[in-house]
């Protein structure tokens, strides 16, 4: 790797990290504002103009709160839980192709931290490790509510990961690659995968809600039955980490959805404008973030619209609807592919 490329990568890593944190921070603000607007209120508006400094105030509050580790808790695991959660949340941004390449001084810099050729698998692996954060935290708290919340989270994630995985397999069968960058490059203009895989997209979207523990699948932190769920015993910044990680996860999920099904940094109607490569790349990044923000908004929109499922309904939906549906989608994709390749005659 060349020297200049190394510097570019380092800057890029820091930028991605900072941007994910910033967006997660302002997602909390957006969440409160959107919730308020949907309920005909105006939400936080005291800290700074329009309450724009509210996330900072919340952060300061989190830091100032008393740090409590229950005496009956397993100390090491108790600290490991939120750390793991935060770690995995920040790790997923690595393989997302944030934009096309920039050409500076005749050299091409790809706007992606690393183009692993099994990008999708990497994301799945890291997201699955996130479950350990919840499970370890719930277990270490030594509290029945935490443990129940953690168990719920784990079983829910495992159930929905199956359907999600199969939706992805259909996509991968179609694209023939596991690299996220290549998948994006295969969707130029408005040839987005969502038009070829609508059912797969639907399954993926629903499962993404379940994976990020968002309403209607937020049973792990169901206040009405479980006090606070897996983070009942947590306080101060450790609680902050759990909550924050959830928002980063939401951001990353939105990015993954936009990448896989909505063409990532591709945008329609610009191919004929004759813009330079770099301008296009920057525009692409902007467009990609617009898509991401739409999905973050969508996550919140759903949250403030529908109530959460009952646990048996959740499991029914997961095992009796989502998984069969994803198998059907898999078979259909296979059939269409075979037919297209002429290996199949009616």
């Amino acid at each position: 790797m060349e020297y200049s490329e190394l510097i570019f990568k380092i800057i890029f890593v820091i930028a991605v990290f900072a941007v994910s944190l910033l967006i997660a921070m302002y997602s909390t603000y957006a969440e409160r504002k959107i919730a308020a607007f949907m309920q005909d209120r105006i939400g936080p508006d005291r800290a700074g103009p329009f309450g724009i400094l509210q996330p900072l105030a919340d952060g300061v509050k989190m830091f100032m709160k008393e740090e409590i580790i229950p005496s009956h808790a397993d100390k090491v695991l108790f600290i490991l839980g939120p750390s793991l959660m935060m770690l995995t949340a920040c790790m997923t941004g690595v393989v997302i192709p944030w934009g096309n390449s920039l050409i500076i001084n005749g050299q091409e810099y790809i706007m992606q931290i690393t183009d692993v050729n099994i990008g999708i698998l990497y994301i799945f692996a890291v997201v699955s490790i996130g479950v350990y954060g919840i499970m370890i935290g719930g277990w270490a708290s030594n509290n029945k509510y935490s443990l129940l919340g953690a168990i719920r989270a784990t079983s829910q994630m495992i159930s929905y990961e199956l359907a999600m995985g199969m939706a992805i397999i259909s996509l991968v069968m179609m694209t023939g690659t596991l690299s996220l960058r290549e998948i994006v490059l295969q969707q130029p203009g408005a040839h987005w995968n969502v038009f070829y895989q609508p059912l797969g997209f639907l399954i993926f979207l629903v499962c993404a809600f379940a994976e990020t523990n968002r309403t209607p699948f937020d049973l792990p932190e169901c206040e009405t039955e479980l006090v606070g769920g897996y983070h009942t015993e947590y306080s101060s910044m450790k609680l902050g980490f759990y909550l924050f990680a959830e928002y980063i996860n939401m951001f990353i999920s939105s990015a993954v959805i936009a990448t896989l099904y909505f063409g990532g940094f591709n945008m329609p109607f610009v191919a004929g404008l004759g813009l330079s490569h770099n301008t296009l790349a920057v525009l692409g990044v902007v467009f990609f973030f617009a898509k991401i923000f739409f999905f973050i908004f969508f996550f919140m929109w759903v949250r403030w619209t529908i109530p959460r499922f009952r646990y048996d309904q959740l499991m029914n939906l997961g095992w009796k609807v989502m998984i069969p549906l994803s198998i059907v989608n898999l078979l259909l994709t296979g059939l269409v592919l075979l037919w297209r390749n002429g290996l199949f005659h009616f």
Partner: protein
Amino acid sequence: MQSLTNRSKVVVNKKMSFMEKIYLPEIAKGMMITLRHLFKKKVTIKYPEQKRPVAPVWRGWHVLKRDELGRENCTACGLCAVACPAEAITMTAAERKPGEENLFREEKYAAVYEINMLRCIFCGLCEEACPKEAIFLTDRNVPVDLLRDDFIFGKDKLLEGVQPEKRIDISVRARAHRQIEN
């Protein structure tokens, strides 16, 4: 039973139809409703910059009045405390010393006069009970505070000032009541 609005729905425990079972159409419907609310007029009133408009007879934060010479009207008779259904008023009486005639109108006065604003139901019975026209409810909101103790209002927060500009206007309600009676 007659319903108050025409929006009430009778809940029936019927089996869900297929369209309802796949959730998505219903969810889309719900999301359209929330989307509409996103652009609706907000009902929030930004207290304390804005205040909710109130009726002219509205009763709020009490005031202990002084007479034209700036002397406290209250004679610590305790009738308001007896009348108070919420038992929010307590007071300690004291005797007026020679030389204090410019401070207190009667020979006995309230050295301590406290209303617990968290107990008070703003019924206005203290005002009705008072024989000395000493206590009135005004159209001011009780200010927000953080501690329960701070809602026990003593004379520092109830008594009006001596200077004309520090007097508290109670004419709004008085006028409104007169209008209603006529």
